[in-house]
């Protein structure tokens, strides 16, 4: 007589056998399995930033993959690592995403050397999104500083594609120098969309620049809106969104009507590695999109 403990194989679980879908958060899945994807196009935006068009290869997974503006994915270069990148494209496109990536570290550096057809891995989408549904019928201020236009581009798409849902839309964008401006080939398109205003400001103009010069908060001086009927999405470095949001608060916009996206060091995207914790809050699960009131209540957030 002996006692044999029976092996348990997690792969026998029915839940885990379903097609990989990171939107089914509570369900057991292969959390570290990546969607096989392919870089289909690379657009050089500035010296430091490139836009990568990426397509999920498996038809079934591509069909399932959906995200909301503000969410991010983990991009994997097998052998070198994974990085969290917020999605810059329209959420209405199926199985195709665009990621604006700055050359900052190991994986992003290597991504910049990648050409179309490179097979990469994708996990996600992860995190919270900008609650655009709540903004129905209201004015929307879409404000970005520097690389902040990358996460803002997804809600810009949403707003421009669903303009009828909003009372008024205003895009405000500030960068250090004219050559740092992202997506400059799209400004004309945004401007021509009926009802969208676009204002751009740079801190350090070059000789060809004939637009606004100064800090982004200056652009807020000239605008008027019904503060109670206005929502704002503010993307950029903490020092920028702090100034902008405080300014908007002083102009009367409720802090819970302003949304920002926080950057932290995510290793998993699933609230497990703790690397992105702010106090007790997981940036990857409870964020990266937070309303400004919550941000002010997060200790060590800004």
């Amino acid at each position, binding site marked *: 007589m002996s006692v044999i403990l029976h092996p348990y194989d997690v792969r026998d679980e029915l839940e885990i056998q379903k097609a990989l879908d990171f939107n089914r958060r509570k369900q057991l899945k292969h959390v570290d399995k990546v969607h096989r994807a392919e870089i289909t196009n690379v657009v050089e935006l500035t010296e430091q930033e490139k836009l990568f068009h990426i397509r999920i290869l498996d038809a079934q997974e591509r069909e399932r993959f959906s995200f909301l503006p503000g969410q991010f994915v983990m991009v994997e*270069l097998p052998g070198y690592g994974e990085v969290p990148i917020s999605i810059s494209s329209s959420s209405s496109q199926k199985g195709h995403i665009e990621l604006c990536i700055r050359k900052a*570290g*190991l994986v992003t*550096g290597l991504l910049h*050397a990648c*050409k179309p*057809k*490179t097979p990469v891995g994708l996990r996600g989408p992860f995190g919270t999104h900008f609650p655009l549904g709540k903004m129905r019928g209201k004015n929307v201020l879409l404000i970005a500083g520097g690389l902040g236009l990358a996460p803002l581009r997804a809600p810009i798409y949403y707003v421009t594609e669903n303009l009828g849902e909003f009372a008024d839309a205003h895009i405000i964008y500030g960068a250090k120098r004219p050559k740092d401006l992202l997506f400059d080939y799209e400004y004309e398109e945004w401007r021509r969309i009926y009802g969208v205003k676009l204002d751009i400001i740079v801190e350090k103009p070059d000789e060809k620049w004939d637009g606004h010069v100064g800090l982004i908060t200056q652009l807020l001086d000239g605008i008027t809106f019904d503060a109670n009927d206005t929502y704002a999405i503010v993307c950029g470095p903490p020092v920028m969104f702090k100034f902008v949001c405080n300014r908007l608060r002083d102009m009367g916009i409720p802090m819970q009507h302003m949304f920002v996206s926080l950057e932290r060091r995510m290793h998993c995207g699933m609230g497990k590695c703790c690397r992105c914790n702010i106090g007790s809050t997981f940036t990857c699960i409870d964020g990266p999109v937070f309303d400004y009131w919550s941000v002010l209540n997060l200790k060590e957030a800004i």
Partner: protein
Amino acid sequence: MKYLGIEPARPKVAVFDFTGCEGCELQLANKEESLAAFLGSIEIVNFREVTSTRRDDYDVAIIDGCISRDDEVERIKEIRSRAKILVAMGSCASFGGVNRMKNAYNLDDANREVYGDKPQATGLTRSIKEVVDVDLEIPGCPVSKEEVERIVQHLVLGVAFTFPVSPVCFDCKHRFITCLFEHGKLCLGSIARSGCNAPCPAGGLGCWGCRGPAEDCNLEQFIAIARERGFSQKEIDERLGFFGGFEGLR
């Protein structure tokens, strides 16, 4: 050997020895299971221990050992002028290494102690960066071949390599080792840079800090702890000075 469609560079590499034991150079020729791939990923144009080729058209110069004689100063300057990237390999090249200990003594006495009545030309020990600009330092006595492989893998694809910032304690704990202080031994594990996988503590020997200090290490507190546990300032200073990595922090 392409990586995801990216053609790695195959840099021309030369390895030169200065004052040191050449153990790090030997490390480069170790790890047989991946040696062929390692040597295949670079083009060795000058490396006394593995090839008879002697060429000067190198992109990367790897320096083993420290500077301790005047003729070495000239030689390293010459190498620096030819190399696009100059790598200081090992604790001697990075910090001066064990050789640096002699700087604490009268040089003539040290010379007599080692060479007796046949004194040799010798000066103060200096690390490579004290003489010429260094692009990368790989600390360790000896360096870890695995780490060197990873550095090369980054180099050939043109991306930066970063060393672990944590102290040796981190590696040590991951090997379930009982703290050597508990056995009454002095150990620099809590302030020395990891990445070595703590072979010394695993063998019952306290860490000697061959990789230099961990990022933002708490030296002041460490010394207080060591004193509290009965180690003399002299013992602690000797330990910190052994590889030269803590020079400037003390």
